[in-house]
């Protein structure tokens, strides 16, 4: 649980500091003349509902993966039957594909910012294709493991390998729903504002899942 607790401590610590700063020298019982503006109380204008929503969602997803990592390490320590699994080299190629996916969506986001529809479209396409390729690649990894006799039930290490890679892939698949939405908006040539929001959310989500993948892959490599 150490990993989870560290994550929660950081998260709740930040939150607590923010709240205390909001409230320490405020006198809630005093009424105001009018709605005066005090910068420190409002969220910065960059914090749009969509972005804050994404951030909150990512916090929940982080909690899910932090707990999976905790379960992984605890299961490793609690019984003596753990036989480490050497991750197949194909994972390196898949990692590269996921990086390309992130780059593609970043390009789409940049394109939306600069009002270049063509760049948005090509970026989205690149990102989507690379992501699908990543997921197919992960399936190949599973097949390789099966062929090598590493089944789900062989050992907790293999079981966790399947569980964790599957959880990660499911989150990408969920992301693809948002990606389809962005694609539809972009191909219909809807207003650039909507496209921008959509592409931005995708890009940020993909970067998050890439970072998460680095952590998970690193953990699988080291243990």
């Amino acid at each position, binding site marked *: *649980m150490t990993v*989870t*607790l560290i994550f*929660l401590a950081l*998260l*709740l610590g930040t*939150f*607590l500091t923010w*709240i*205390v700063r*909001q*409230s320490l020298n*405020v*006198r*809630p*019982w*005093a*009424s*105001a*003349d*009018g*709605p*005066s*503006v*005090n910068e*420190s*109380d*409002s*969220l910065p*204008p960059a*914090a*749009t*509902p969509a972005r*804050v*929503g994404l951030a*909150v*969602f990512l*916090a*929940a*997803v982080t*909690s*899910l993966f932090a*707990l*999976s990592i905790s*379960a992984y390490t*605890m*299961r490793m320590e*609690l*019984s*003596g*039957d753990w036989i480490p699994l050497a991750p197949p080299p194909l994972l390196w190629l898949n990692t590269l594909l996921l990086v390309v996916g992130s780059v593609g969506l970043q390009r789409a986001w940049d394109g939306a910012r600069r009002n270049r529809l063509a760049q948005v479209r090509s970026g989205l396409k690149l990102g989507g294709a690379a992501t699908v390729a990543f997921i197919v690649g992960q399936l190949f990894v599973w097949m390789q493991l099966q062929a090598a006799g590493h089944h*789900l*039930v062989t050992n*907790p290490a293999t*079981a966790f390998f399947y*569980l964790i890679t599957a*959880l990660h892939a499911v989150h990408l698949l969920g992301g693809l729903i948002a990606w389809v939405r962005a694609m539809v908006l972009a191909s219909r040539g809807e207003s650039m504002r909507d496209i921008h929001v959509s592409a931005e959310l995708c890009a940020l989500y993909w970067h998050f899942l890439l970072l998460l993948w680095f952590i998970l892959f690193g953990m699988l490599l080291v243990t």
Partner: protein
Amino acid sequence: MARLGHEATSYAPPLEMPEMELVHPKTFIGKYVFSQDAKVIAIQYFITATSIGLVALVLSILIRLQLGFPGTFSFLDPSSYLQHVTMHGMIMVVYLLTALLLGAFGNYLIPLMCGARDMVFPWLNMLSYWTYLTAVLILVASFFVPGGPTGAGWTLYPPQAITPGTPGYDWGIILMLVSLAVFIAGFTMGGLNYVVTILQARTRGMTLMRLPLTIWGIFMATVLALLAFPALLVAALMMLMDMLAGTSFFMPTMIALGEQTGYEDGSPLLFQHLFWFFGHPEVYIVALPAFGIVSDILATHARRNIFGYRMMVWALIAIGGLSFVVWAHHMYVSGMNPYFGFLFATTTLIIAVPTALKVYNWVLTLWKGNIQLTVPMLFAIGFIFTFVNGGLSGLFLGNVTVDVPLADTYFVVGHFHMVMAVAPIMVIFGAIYHWYPKVTGRMMNDTLGKWHFWITFIGTYGIYYPMHYIGLAGVPRRYYAYGETGFIPDSVISLNAAITIAAIVVALAQLLFFYNMFHSYFRGREAGPNPWNATTLEWQTEHTPPHHGNFGRELPVVYRWAYDYGVPGARHDFIPQNVSPDDVETLPEGQEVPAR
């Protein structure tokens, strides 16, 4: 007109609030079935949660009949007893209380109290309800599958939960785990809405420190839920894999019904850690909204500002944070390093500090208040009593040495029902009586309400207080019948019968409540916009019940906190949040506020 106190504190969101685009469907289905209006979604949550809660209530009465009069009735056999206990517990905790406090009250109150037109993501909000309904239906389906629902106890501990011999070890447990996973997905959608709406959609002038405590409670509870439910999700997925794919995450090497199982070396303790990492915060997911709501009910009906508002907010946050580091107090008898036991006992007892602080503040709010013994107020005061009682037995259980003999006895059953069943239910009833006039435009009947309160309050003490003594006598929980057991005296047997009678009385008293709710909907006295003379924004709407969009053409502007009751010098004993200092009517010099 004189100006009353204007330490200009700040204001938050942008001066120009962007107007929300609301979906205004014309059809019946669009308006009332697949509605995106948070108020309609709230009522859908309410109806679904209450219905499934009534099922759980019936289950508990059957359990009690068995315990009170063993051998007399034939509703239950040992297996179905366990199934009833399991479903009762899980439904009450997750599908009733969590859904009601966050799904129903959250949806109704957040936009109104923050001064917003609706939730920030209305479509997602609608999807959240339908996902929740799906989860409930999957759960209900488990009553009808071969083998029936799971009987593993609401804690679902492996290896028992998925081992042959446990009732519902195949279909029942699968449906339970799937239903929980679906519930969590649905909750996450709703939870995103609650958090983002509170952070982003507050109206002009509604600073964080002017939010009513109800909103603070719901906010913190949602944050906890978003972070804690994933633990249950991971545990459920891993157990499903153990069950369906034969992995050994949790399942140890063992022999079941004389046969060696295929499992090897899994760790049941790992499940317990994951489960309680969710399970303990869950207690506060239920408690924090109740804390918030009760603060507002007390202030409104005692015509007095809440004592120590900021302290209340900080205490909510402190309790929320601490609730993540006490989970192992549920595992004292599962075997752990004694130093860990010491650590967790310490953190557990530390939580008592902010909690006690809140209790003092509630009592101090009542002190010298102009207390109106309305039905909501009665329930709020009832909550304080019940909660303190349950909290005190929690202090006992928090100590390892005291807990070891008491674990798995009726003392625990008494404790958690006081603190997490009766106490939040008191608040929920109080809240229903309090907000019913806003939701329907009519008052509930006062006399019926008072009868309902007194029978429920005294009755629940009749049910749960004796359980502490039974537990001290060492009577274990989750037993179908005790048979010839030397250490159980006759007095326990008579007490058990008495408890069952009290439980039946309490259950029947709820009929008064439901009758009152339905009857008042048609025949209740017209309530007007603000029957309790309350300050918060939901009482200042143009229409009662509020229309889609909540407020009139313009959103209200907030000038003050939610607790301006009995302000010296003001003509009325309350000043709504949207009244500017210039508009406060004052009294001539030397005159007092007329006593009510």
